[in-house]
């Protein structure tokens, strides 16, 4: 152990250096906290699609890290025209206005069509089937009232640090919104 004893002094010098650096690092962390504490937010944020900017490119269905995208079509019924020929439900130039697969636009038959009263039909989304491809949204926005639109569903979204759909969104429509108001729903202008 003689060697160890002879090393006593440099070890101490090294320890001193180490202690100094440690104090400096701690101070740095403290400074960081000081600098950022004022600006940090206690309430979180979540990702959401701004329907006004959405271009219905269809990438929400494919780019989400979840296998079945957290983006789903939602329906604001107050805007819906309850059309018999719903351009969000039917393919262009449908064979007949019925629920036959050959007439449906939705790849997964996630839209349910229900007769309400003549000549109105109610359309609702089955979110378990919806893959967020936005085909119906395109149809509804292009030719109809635009009552169908895409939203990130927060019961599914993992709230990734960097949303992989936002990264490729051609409309730059996906941004973080306060978690207390996590949806950007379409509403009618005051009636």
């Amino acid at each position, binding site marked *: *152990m003689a*060697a*160890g004893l002879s*090393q006593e002094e*440099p070890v101490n010098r090294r320890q001193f250096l*180490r202690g100094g*650096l*440690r104090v400096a*690092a*701690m101070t740095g962390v403290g400074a*960081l*906290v000081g600098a*950022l504490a004022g*600006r*940090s*937010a*206690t*309430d*979180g*944020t*979540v990702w959401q699609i701004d*329907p006004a900017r959405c*271009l219905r*490119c269809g990438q929400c269905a494919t780019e989400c890290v*979840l296998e079945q995208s957290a983006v789903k079509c*939602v329906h*604001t*019924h*107050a*805007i819906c*025209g*309850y*059309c018999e020929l719903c351009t969000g439900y039917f393919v262009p130039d449908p064979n007949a206005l019925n629920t036959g697969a050959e007439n449906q636009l939705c790849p997964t038959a996630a839209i349910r069509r229900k007769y309400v*009263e003549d000549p*109105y039909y*109610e359309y*609702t989304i089955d979110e378990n089937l919806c893959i967020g491809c936005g085909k119906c949204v395109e149809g509804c*926005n292009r030719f*109809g*009232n*635009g009552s169908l639109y895409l939203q990130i569903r*927060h*019961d599914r979204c993992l*709230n990734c*640090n*960097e949303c*992989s759909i936002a990264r490729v969104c*051609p*409309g730059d429509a996906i941004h973080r919104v306060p978690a*207390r*108001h*996590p*949806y*950007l*729903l*379409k*509403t*009618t*202008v005051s*009636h």
Partner: protein
Amino acid sequence: MKRRAHTFLVGLWTWLAAAGVAGAEQRFPPPDFESGYQLPVTQTPAPRAEWLQYFDVLVLLIALGLACHLILRKRSRAGVVGLSLFSLLYFGFYREGCICAIGSVQNVALALFDRSYALPVTVLVFCLVPIVFSLVVGRAFCAAVCPHGALQDLVLLKPVKVPAWLEHALGVLPYLYLGAGVMFAATGSAFLICRYDPFVPLFRLSGSVLMLTTGAAFVVLGMFVGRPYCRFVCPYGALLRLGALVARWRVRVTPDFCTQCQLCEHSCPFGAMREPTAPAANPAAQSADRRRLGWLLLLLPVLIAAGAWLGGKLSVPLSRLDPNVALAEKFLDPRKAAPLPGVQTPQSLALGRAEDNPKELLAAAAAARQKFAAASWLFGGWVGLVIGVKLIGLSLRVARTDFEPDRGACFGCARCFSFCPNERVRLGLQPAPANLPAPAAVAATAASVPPAKPA
């Protein structure tokens, strides 16, 4: 009509949460129903409750404290494995890798450079607490709290020894990655570290095929190379390594004195064990060492300057990772392919958006480019600094008397303890040889860890 107004009020109340998105032009007026039909209300499932985030912080703090206790006091590999399993299940498979200290560095960097970015408190805590712990007790976070580390540690099957020189060289990479991650985050263009995280897709069992494959490759590699991501990639581990270098306490293999049996060196799958070396006795060798050190010290500013110069040239290519810059470049390209009629690709849609408001896009792109003009030479300088400091570090001769883990490289996995004959004696697993101090004395010294001083 009254009924309808009522429905509408209910609707409005629900939608109050949302910022009023202007109603689209209503080509087809909403009908007035006569059959008493009630408008369905749009469902809005709530995001994960806020308090659960604070619960995550609590779990982190408890797990870190427990890790310190298990590594330094209990010196229990079984405990560390158990905690690793818990962390893998909680932070990994349950929280699906997203609240994560590794990625949080980027958020902190972004918050430092972008005043408008509100950094969630929990993210700040997740970023800083493991660093503070590393300054006190070393890499307890890597040992048993980080799900990435836990996964790699648990899948380790038959470790292959990576040559020390290669380990040193590859050990530079995490710092370069850290620099790049901070640069891209600080410019607000990308969270590189999150994007290319190989394990989070595994925890989620979904993700891009590329990253799933990369993750699988890392797992398979991790069966034969101890913690490949932690050692050669992880940018947060790089930070913790720096912290551990100056930590107050450290992992010591032997509870009292080292018998130089080399068993601990054999036990470490991460190449972290250092053998004892005497200080150079030969004055000639010493002076050669000193001369080299002098030259390398002189080289450091040169390397930094060269890196900064070279990095400065990268501002344009690097800025292309910013979506605005990438789109603006495509938009301004005179030879861009005209969009095919009737085929709406995401790219043509993006270009259409650019065409609608080129000023806004170009302004954003130019601002990002400006940021990169500053960030890229800083990044280059950082690369030069890392290389220079590493070279200097490799030229410093450290004298050791005992086998001990390298302060920075040791993850604190607690594997080596049970290999140490003195530890086994302390635990009563094998009898003390006659020429050793009495077990009682050993126990007394062992109780005083950390750190146990050689008698």
